[in-house]
């Protein structure tokens, strides 16, 4: 198990940002948290980073570039090194399958994100 040092939260909803941040702080307050409000913003941010985040928490439903579109763009990266955990309001099978088809998508989490979910994610690193 590797220690998580940086997490990128991609979500359009302010409430969910707070919820995720509170969960991360409870799990490990030392984790560095980055935020983006849609897929495009996240891609732009990743572009600027020297070290990619260990985990990307990705919301599916977003205005602008949504979660699915982000995954498609991200898969074109030469080496997508971050693992991605999906955050979804509903546990819809078709959606889940589509996301888990990408090798770098390791987890599909139904909102809200809980402290325990981060332990599971860390175990996958």
């Amino acid at each position, binding site marked *: 198990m590797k220690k998580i040092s940086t997490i990128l939260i991609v979500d*359009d*909803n*302010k*409430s*969910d940002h*707070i*919820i995720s941040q*509170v969960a991360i702080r409870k799990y490990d307050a030392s984790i560095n948290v980055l935020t983006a*409000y*849609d897929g*495009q*913003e996240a891609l732009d941010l990743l572009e600027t980073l020297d070290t990619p985040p260990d985990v990307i928490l990705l919301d599916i*439903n*977003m*205005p*602008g*570039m949504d979660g699915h579109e982000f995954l498609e763009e991200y898969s074109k990266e030469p080496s997508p090194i971050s693992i991605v955990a999906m955050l979804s*309001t*509903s546990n*819809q099978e078709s959606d889940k399958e589509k996301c888990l088809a990408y090798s770098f998508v390791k987890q599909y989490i139904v*909102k*809200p994100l809980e402290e325990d979910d981060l332990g599971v994610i860390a175990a996958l690193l």
Partner: protein
Amino acid sequence: MDYTYEESLERQPRMQTYQELESLKHAYKLAGLGYWSIELETEQLYWSDEVFYIHGLDPETYIPALDNTADLYHPHDKEKASTLLQKAMAHGEAFEYELRIVRTDGSTRYVRSKAECFYDDGGRAVSIFGIFQDIDDEVKEKHRVEIAEIAHKTHIDGSGDGYWDWHIQDDYEYMSPRFWEILGYLPEEKPHSPSAWQDLIFEDDLNVALDNFNKHINSKGQHPYEQEVRYRHKNGSTVTVLCRGKVIEWDDNGNALRMVGTHTDITYLKAIEKELRQSREQYDLAVTGSSVGLWDWNIAQDTLYWSDRFKEIIGIRDVLHTASFAEFEQRLHPEDRPIILEAVENHITHKEPYDVEYRLQHDDGHYVWIHARGQAIWNRRGKPTRMAGSIDDITIQKNSEIILEKALDFQKLLMKVNTDLIFVKDEKHRIVEANESFIGLYPEEQRDKVIGYTTVEDYDPDEAEAFLAEDKKAFREGLSEVVETILFPDKTQRTLLTKKIRFEGFNHEEFIFCIARDITQLKKIEDELLKANGELEEFAYRTSHDLRSPLISSKKLLDIIRENIEQGDIDTSLSYLDIVIDSLRKLEELVSDILKITKLNNSELELTSVDIKALIDDSLQKFSHMDGYEDIHFYCQYDYDKPLILQKEHLILVIENLLSNAIKYRDGSKSESFVKVETERNGNQVSVKFTDNGLGIPEKSRRKLFTMFKRFHPNTAFGSGLGLYMVKKSLDKMGGDIEYNDVEQGTQFVVTLPLSD
């Protein structure tokens, strides 16, 4: 020589030179003319040789004299000849006659004589000179023509028949050679007297003839002189002759003077008739109890025999009923009459087969369908004498035929009026039958090239291959059913539900009956329904997501707030509470939009007069409290400001959404934000243009602009994602449209609204 003989006599002394006289004689001889003269002083009669010859007398032995020549004339003409000659001798009167002489061999010949007197210088008659000519052939020919004319006039067909000419008072009767030929004699063998034929006729028949003759005379020719009489042929056999005649000359006292007539040999016909009667009787016997009726028309006598069965078919109960051709004609259905009479005529004159169907009137008044066949008999000279045949009552068949015909007509009518495409193909995929709807798919100039052709080349090769495959399936399996979309030769694309069913023709060849229903419209509706269903599904999914999402978040956030309050962190709690409140406010907005959509889809709103300028002013007033409103310059230009007739609520929804979007998505980085509204009339439409210099729509998102739950602006998102979807829906309901125009900076929507008359 320019003088006539008379002139030469006047100008020159009598007794010309021998030579001149000889040449004159010679000329007369050549012309077949005889001549005679009487010296009045001596009453001496001179005949040229021709006169002797015409009389059949020898110039060497016979000495003509005024007192013996009258006897040479036919008893009937003797008096006339004497009178004319006496008048000429007494008064110098010229004369001309055509009279009969009787030659020494007993034969009678017609002669013509023309005579004139000659006078001396003192004006005294000195001589009579006359020409004498045998005109028997000429007269007989004339008579023959007369008789033919009479025969024609009296409807006696004289062609090929013998004829006779009876001078009743003189007991002289001329029989044409044909008559004697009929009886086997040469004309020379028999005298020109009624006794000649009366010796050869059967006694009973002579009595019939005499009886008819008396009746004919007594009725002044009204009673027909016509009978079939038997003669003994020279060879002993019996000959039957149809004898007809008519008096053509009467004297002032009403006595018949001259009668003419014809002889027709009907021996052969009689034999046939007898044979026919026998065979008919046999046939009658053979078919008794069968359905066949018999008829036998004697054309010459105009009698018509109908067998008992014939009578039964047309309901005649009177077994003694005698029919006539006129009755047959009368009973024929008026529609059939001309056709049948023509068929009879064609048979008896052109020998065309007589095999016909017609309707005969039953005694009860209704018509019976008859199938008739017949055969005429012609005499040796090609004249029809009888026609006989059989009839069948085909009413039942005919009625079922008519029913079938009507059913067929009805079927054709059904095919014609059917809007489905109905056609029949043979095994080579050729169209053998098609209804109007089907043929109508081809351009007019091509329509006569449909039946009998595959027309495969008129279709897209892939489509043709597909429908030919269906043909083959139908031939193989008996049935094929498919929904196909085909581009037809008339350039229309149709979706068809096509059924093809195999069937067998009369000669066991196989066909497929094809019926294609145009379901283009149905398909379109189905597609629309599918789309609407898809939308509904999406709507349900999105709704559940977008409704649940803020609820789940808010609930979780409230848990966090509780924890914070318990830990005494009031400031954080309060800021989180604001977020919860904002989230719930948006939820409320979403629920309200969803309700609006439901209303949009389900209600029919009333048409009202709408002032677009007033609506825009109201909306701007309503949004004046919104964030950023103060920073925006609004420009409104109403080139069209007349009232519109449409559903006001829909138009309000459109204007409010577009204006609020323009305010929400203004570009805060710009020093000056503006929103421009312009109205303009384009034909029968009004366009309302909304232009701003706000954030604009990212290029890749534009195609999804008017779909549900699409938000395009991260971070600034506070819409339900239903706004433009509702705008589009409302415009659809109003018959309008919306278009997004690509502008360099910001957004431009052009709304078009229909202008009502």
